[in-house]
């Protein structure tokens, strides 16, 4: 086995199944993840099964740039899947990790990313149980793509479904919105904003676990990733045949997020968070949910932003100027605008 030089790059042969593949796995994967079910590099992991229900999800990560202020594609790939399990009312336990690497990726970049995967997984209490590494020719992917699959145990009591939402319910978020998407946007080469917001990429499983005593009062939870708050709330109103009314003055948008949004002509409600929860709960549980969230560092910025209302299935917002606007679905790709 030959350790790779720090300045070296990933070659096509590192994915070819031969000696270089073996070396890459032995020097980069096994030392980080080889203690659990990966020990001995079996073709599949054997996991203990408990009674009850499992929660199972998968997600692909293709962020550019790979490293951005506040995180990189590695911790993002862990948080993304772990958070999907968590907001579905699950306790995340196991993770798969599939890497698609473009030939020429600097080894130090891969190491940075794998270190982040390891520390993020440890912080979330999940174990990387199985994985795969492929290398593709230059131009066939953009540096590094990661797919993670997370498996968790269903927490008792939660019955999360958009259809549970009813008029009078409160809408809460666990912290500042749109910070991840804005951080990534600012880090892009053709934009070049310095000292923009830091990504909020973080696990939310403790925020969900903290609500367990209130589970009966929780109607619905989501992490507002792609498409931002506007997207998840529009999906909610479509599914639940209710409306949502927000108050702009109550939205947790940092000065940095608002500044970048104004510079680039973006609506922060359309921009992703990667470490936040949007919660719809019964009104009598709202105060306690906020207290429970604020007792955790990742929930320090939790606040109520609006309520579920009867009537047309739309999301509206009372603006800081005192007007009323429609919060519609984002069109898709976020692009800097001049108009």
């Amino acid at each position, binding site marked *: 086995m030959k350790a790779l030089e720090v300045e070296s790059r990933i070659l096509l042969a590192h994915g070819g199944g031969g000696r270089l593949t073996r070396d890459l796995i032995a020097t980069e994967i096994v030392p980080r993840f080889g203690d659990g079910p990966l020990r001995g590099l079996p073709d599949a992991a054997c996991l203990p099964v408990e009674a009850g229900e499992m929660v199972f999800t998968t997600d692909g990560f293709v962020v550019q740039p790979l490293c951005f202020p506040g995180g990189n594609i590695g911790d993002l790939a862990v948080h993304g899947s772990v958070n999907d399990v968590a907001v579905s009312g699950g306790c995340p336990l196991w993770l798969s990790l599939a890497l698609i690497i473009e030939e020429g990726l600097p080894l130090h970049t891969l190491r940075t990313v794998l270190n982040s995967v390891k520390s993020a997984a440890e912080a979330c209490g999940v174990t990387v149980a199985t994985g795969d590494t492929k290398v593709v020719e230059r131009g066939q992917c953009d540096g590094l793509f990661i797919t993670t699959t997370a498996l968790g145990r269903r927490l008792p009591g939660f019955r999360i479904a958009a259809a549970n939402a009813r008029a009078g319910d409160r809408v809460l978020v666990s912290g500042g919105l749109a910070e991840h998407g804005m951080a990534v946007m600012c880090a892009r080469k053709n934009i*070049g904003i*310095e000292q923009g917001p830091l990504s909020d990429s973080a696990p939310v499983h403790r925020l969900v676990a903290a609500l367990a005593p209130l589970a009966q009062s929780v109607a619905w939870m989501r992490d507002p990733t792609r498409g931002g708050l506007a997207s998840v709330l529009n999906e909610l109103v479509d599914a639940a045949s209710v409306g949502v009314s927000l108050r702009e003055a109550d939205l947790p948008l940092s000065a*940095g997020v608002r*500044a970048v949004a*104004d510079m680039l002509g973006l609506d922060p409600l359309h921009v992703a968070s990667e470490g936040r929860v949007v919660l719809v709960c019964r009104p009598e549980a709202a105060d306690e949910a906020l207290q429970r969230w604020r007792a955790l560092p990742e929930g320090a910025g939790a606040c109520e932003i609006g309520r579920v209302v009867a009537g047309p299935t739309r999301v509206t917002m009372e603006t800081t100027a005192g007007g009323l606007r429609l919060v519609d679905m984002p069109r898709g790709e976020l692009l800097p*605008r*001049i*108009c």
Partner: protein
Amino acid sequence: MCLAVPMLLESLTDKDAGMAALGGSRHEVDLSLIDNPQPGDYLIVHAGFAIEKLDTEEAEARLRLFDELAATP
């Protein structure tokens, strides 16, 4: 047309360029289209270019007017 934001010019970085800030974010801004930019000036920035200086006296006068309007029942 033409989104533009107020930014505070913090320093001059080059001939016709400076570092400007808004809400904790910084961006290098082109200064070639305005006269005599100085650190401490507030700029109106469009597509990375300062297109005008913001007159803070005029702005403050407006903000005082808004305070009066808000106080009038």
